[in-house]
């Protein structure tokens, strides 16, 4: 360990490449008294490159900090690849790494969020780290109505999703960690949006899914001469006066770092929330203005309802996030609320529009890591799902299957692997999202990277891979089987390597 002892604080940070995590790291490095030890997954060289590119727009020169010994990067993974030596001399832990998967798939989000937190707490106890900050969520436990106190709920709420449940379980572990010489803080940010200056974001789940749903509506209306884009028949489940609690990521990081470094010697929970968030009606107005759409009406009906318009089917297929944002009627107790806020709302129309513009400019995150790997002969699945598929599917016979409406997730396991969710409407591929939370799938395929390559090159069949155990199906098996001939058609028409 080379981090020098000339700093007052040595912070061990997990989740530094995440949306909030890299803002936290930037804020920590703004404090002259603080050095950081950063846990990353994968190879240190790749992670360093990735982290440097994330921090550069925030004005942070990672290379300089690494050279000065103010930042150390260690490679590992929670819960089972944690070297106890990494916590030597650490004064604070900020545990921001998390799986944001709403619904359970395999062991996640529980393995990452509960087992990972447990492992880190135990290591911190052994290493006698005095301060532990757990980054949770304002929605831990899945409460849907009423006031959220700065306390751990007695039990998860009915309808709590796996992400919220895992955070609730982890919060209980964190609070139990408190003891002589050990102070734990739980910080609960609400719904993150881009930063105040530019609307910059690096993850596009959460409220962004709602925005993407509206963008898709706009695109669908453009292709439909019979529908007036200012009278789109769309029932919006929710109430106009509900206030989705949006907070800018930069503000959340600043408050979190200040809370951690200036914390008293008492354990506590902080709801990191917006005291005056916009209403659902305001957000709806802003989205409609940005995408030049009108016609959405709030409704008390519960989706799915009978005889939906095709716009409603498309809109709601984006996933459960959309169902939730205008429904949860919550207020939050927050010890930050007194005297912390200026007159201007944290999130207003100007800021929200910046977020939308930034997201559109970076294609909702699709424009960041699309490359055919030149270093090796192997194919980058990101290139395949985000470029190749998008380019060729419109020319495939499979795109004429009007009855085919589904969101399909592909999990590619391997060094270049990842997750992609593809949304098909009337046979057309209308959206491809990366990461676990991008879209809620109806079914999916989990395939090893080498097998995936053989399949898309036309050298192997998905069915054979399934029966040999190299591929698996999850979710709606019947729908997955129905998709097999469609995929075979496309793979026959457009095998990689022959185009």
């Amino acid at each position: 360990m080379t981090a020098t002892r000339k700093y007052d604080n040595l912070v061990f940070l997990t989740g530094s490449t995440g949306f909030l995590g890299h803002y936290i790291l930037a804020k920590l490095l703004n404090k002259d008294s603080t050095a950081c030890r950063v846990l990353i997954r994968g190879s240190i060289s790749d992670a360093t490159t990735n982290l440097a590119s994330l921090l550069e727009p925030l004005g942070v020169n990672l290379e300089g900090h690494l050279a000065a010994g103010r930042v150390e990067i260690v490679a590992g993974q929670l819960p089972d690849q944690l070297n106890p030596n990494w916590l030597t001399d650490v004064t604070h832990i900020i545990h921001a790494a998390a799986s944001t998967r709403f619904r359970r798939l395999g062991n996640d989000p529980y393995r990452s969020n509960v087992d990972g937190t447990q492992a880190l707490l135990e290591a911190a106890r052994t290493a006698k780290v005095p301060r532990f900050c757990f980054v949770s969520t304002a929605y831990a436990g899945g409460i849907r109505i009423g006031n959220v106190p700065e306390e751990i709920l007695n039990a998860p709420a009915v309808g709590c999703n796996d992400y919220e449940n895992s955070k609730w379980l982890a919060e209980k572990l964190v609070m139990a960690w408190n003891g002589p010489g050990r102070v734990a803080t739980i910080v609960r940010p609400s719904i993150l949006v881009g930063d105040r200056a530019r609307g910059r974001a690096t993850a596009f789940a959460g409220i962004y899914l709602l925005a993407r749903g509206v963008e898709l509506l706009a695109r669908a209306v453009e292709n439909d001469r019979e529908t007036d884009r200012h009278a789109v028949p769309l029932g919006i489940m929710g109430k106009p006066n509900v206030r989705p609690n949006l907070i800018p990521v930069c503000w959340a990081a600043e408050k979190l770092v200040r809370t951690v470094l200036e914390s008293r010697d008492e354990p506590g929970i902080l709801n990191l929330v917006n005291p005056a968030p916009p209403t659902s009606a305001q957000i709806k107005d802003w989205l409609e203005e940005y995408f030049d759409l009108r016609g959405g009406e709030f409704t008390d009906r519960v989706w799915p309802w009978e005889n939906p318009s095709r716009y409603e089917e498309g809109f709601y297929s984006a996933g459960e996030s959309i169902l939730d944002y205008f429904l949860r009627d919550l207020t939050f107790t927050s010890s930050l609320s007194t005297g912390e806020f200026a007159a201007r709302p944290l999130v207003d129309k100007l800021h929200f529009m910046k977020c939308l513009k930034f997201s559109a400019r970076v294609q909702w995150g699709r424009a960041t890591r699309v490359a055919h790997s030149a270093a090796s002969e192997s194919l980058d699945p990101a290139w395949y799902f985000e470029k190749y598929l998008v380019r060729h599917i419109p020319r495939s016979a499979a795109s004429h299957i009007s009855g085919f409406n589904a969101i399909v997730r592909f999990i590619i396991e391997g060094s270049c692997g990842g997750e992609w969710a593809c949304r098909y409407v009337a046979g057309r591929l209308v959206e491809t999202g990366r990461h676990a939370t991008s879209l809620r799938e109806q079914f999916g395929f989990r395939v090893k990277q080498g097998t995936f390559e053989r399949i898309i090159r036309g050298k192997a069949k998905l069915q054979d891979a399934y029966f040999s155990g190299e591929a698996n199906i999850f979710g709606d098996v019947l729908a997955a089987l129905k998709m097999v001939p469609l995929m075979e058609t496309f793979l026959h028409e457009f095998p990689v390597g022959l185009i």
Partner: protein
Amino acid sequence: MWMCLEELVTIPADGTSLNGQLAYSAAGRTPCALIAGSHPLLGGNMNSNVASSLRTGLAERNAAALSFDYRNPRSPGTSSADWARTVSEFWRTNHVPQEADWRNDTRSALAYLRSIAAAPTVLIGYSFGCHTIAGVAADSQAAAVICISPNPRDNDLSLFQSLQTPLLVISSDNDFSCTAGDLRLWYDSLGGPREIEIFSKAEHFFRGRERDLVCTVSRFLLAHGLIEE
């Protein structure tokens, strides 16, 4: 166990032809088994793990076993538009008009099998194939019928109700296509001699359990004197 021989065969069917694969032992061919596979629009084909393991497994027990591909829903001459219409219909309803052709294909495959092997016949349906053998079982004078992973909710299997041929039903306790309740309801509605075998956690596909499947089928055929120990 006998040495198993396999050959690709062409089966005449309503003015067209079907691809088939025939397995038999070098020593003899008693009985002969027809294996009707799963739905072609769900990836079913004559070489699925269930069809191929039964085919070779039964041949090693001195039977002749034939599996076949239903006529291709996208055969040459089918326009892209027709194919798209067919698949769209399937996505909406789980059924397509071609299913009548596939029932006829099963009848054609049975006629072909009987033309090459004069022996008691066993009809084996897997998944959607249970539906296609239902259409021929009643008047086929089969010696035994075996339904693997039947789905009585989506496929019409009512023709089995009057069947008096010995019937073996094989399913799994976690078959995605059919709940235990639906299966039991259908099984209890049957009138003839029958037995049922429920595999634990074999899903719809018996992936990795193919050998157990062959053993179960063989035990049933042995009990009815259709194969020798």
